[in-house]
């Protein structure tokens, strides 16, 4: 019996190890492939210059337009997601505490929004733009990406808030807090590390999405200087260059992918550092 349990334990431990390390191996494999394939094109020009004439045929320039466009869209969308997302998640966890059915319906709808493919958001944004007579623009890209990432921010933050012990709610209310004071002065602070993670998760999704910005933000070789100008994004820069028959251009696509990966890795690392910093005061 003991022998059998030991063998079972060894097999399951092996399977758990394989699952965990295979995921890390896949991530490492992706990064290695991207960097190896794009290494030849990774140079200062790539991040410091916009595309020059003939760039898409192997000419000079870089993808600064797409880096800046992506950051504009992802930062703008994240700001909207924060403004809409934090109060929504707090509302669900504070004011709807006695309305379980309403709360569940809202959560279900947010989950459904989270699950909608980004191309649908892009199509919705495009329809709205036609209705409003707008052209592809930075603002359209920001709004559509905000719609895409807000459910992610709300639900992630909501999950964090729902794990806060009821004792902390009670402690805060017993001191004479109103529900709103409890929400913003206590629960938000307790959930701040989770909120940072939620926002940066949304940011990562927003900056890496191509379908939602394809019709809405458009594409341009210039850096946008106004909200109604089109904006290039890194995913689309990769998409357009990867389909080129010219090897140098395809190499640049991988270099752009490497830049996007570096941005996302920096964001993930920042999220971890900030979360750790703000969780020091938190009760567990």
């Amino acid at each position: 019996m003991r022998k059998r349990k030991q063998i079972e334990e060894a097999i399951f431990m092996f399977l758990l190890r394989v699952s965990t390390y295979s995921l890390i191996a896949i991530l490492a494999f992706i990064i290695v492939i991207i960097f190896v394939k794009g290494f030849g094109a990774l140079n200062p020009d790539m991040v410091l210059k916009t595309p020059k004439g003939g760039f898409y045929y192997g000419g000079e320039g870089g993808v600064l337009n797409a880096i800046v466009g992506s950051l504009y869209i992802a930062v703008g969308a994240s700001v909207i997601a924060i403004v809409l997302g934090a109060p929504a998640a707090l509302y669900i966890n504070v004011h709807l505490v006695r309305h379980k059915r309403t709360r569940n319906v809202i959560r279900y709808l947010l989950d459904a929004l989270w699950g909608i493919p980004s191309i649908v958001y892009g199509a919705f944004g495009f329809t709205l733009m036609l209705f409003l007579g707008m052209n592809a623009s930075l603002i359209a890209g920001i709004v559509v990406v905000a719609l895409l990432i807000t459910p992610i921010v709300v639900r992630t933050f909501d999950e964090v808030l729902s794990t806060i012990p009821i004792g902390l709610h009670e402690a805060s209310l017993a001191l004479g807090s109103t529900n709103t004071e409890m929400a913003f002065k206590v629960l938000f602070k307790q959930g701040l590390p989770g909120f940072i993670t939620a926002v940066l998760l949304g940011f990562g999704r927003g900056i890496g999405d191509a379908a939602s910005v394809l019709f809405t933000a458009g594409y341009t070789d210039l850096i946008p200087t106004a909200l109604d100008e089109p904006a290039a994004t890194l995913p689309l820069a990769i998409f357009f260059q990867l389909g080129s028959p010219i090897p140098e251009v395809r190499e640049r696509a991988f270099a752009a992918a490497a830049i996007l990966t570096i941005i996302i890795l920096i964001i993930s690392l920042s999220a971890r550092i900030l979360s750790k910093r703000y969780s020091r005061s938190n009760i567990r």
Partner: protein
Amino acid sequence: MIPYIIPSEGTNDLGHDSDLSLRGNGSQPVVRVKNLNVFAGEHHILKNINLEIPRNKITVLLGPSGCGKTTLLKCMNKLTDLYKELKVSGSIYIDDDDILNAQGYIPEIRQRMGLLSQRPFPLPMSIFRNVSYGIKLKGISDKKLIAHNVEKYLREVGLWEEVKDRLNQPATSLSIGQQQRLCLARGLAVKPHIILADEPTSALDPISSKIIENLFKELKKNYTIILVTHVLRQAVRLADNVVFMYYGEIIEQGPPERLFNEPATEKLKEYIYEGN
């Protein structure tokens, strides 16, 4: 908003609510529970509770786990609002305000009661800000006055000397026993006249428990303490008035000498027997 005491000249002391007329007559009960019923779905948790809590005494709500002691305590400051499944009816008068059917502002009524939970729940902020939080909620913004009162209430719970050099550190850096005393200081800082303590020593080691118990003995001079416990010995050590509960009902109540020496009901006799 409840008027805050104006500091006397030459001092930054906020004073104490015992000086205020809102405390009412000293001989009148400070809490009166009338026909209180609590249901959780079909389950009748509290059955027609009628109770008067005497002023400046330690009233112990005693009984086995699950008999409704904590629910009764939570009804007193309307924290039952947080539990969707609870349906509460009846009246609980805090002084003359019925908190369950309050026309007034619930947060202000809640500030008349400090809460100490089974395990400490420090707010996610520094030691200093944990105590100043409630003071600021009362509309006080004078930094000197706040700092003075933070020190005053940390001293009152015997924590000042232990934390005075690290007031800006997170409250979670304190030991569990210190956190519980911090929570008591935080509760006292809003100047309640009732302390609701829900098994406040259950998560503490014997030394920290003794400190809290000794604090209660001191604090009852100025506060009414309602203590929930299922520990018979703790009730014997602390109680001025005992309310014995069993399955949502008050079985017996009165001074501890009578209840523990001459229990009138079989249930209490059995509880005392098992407790010993």
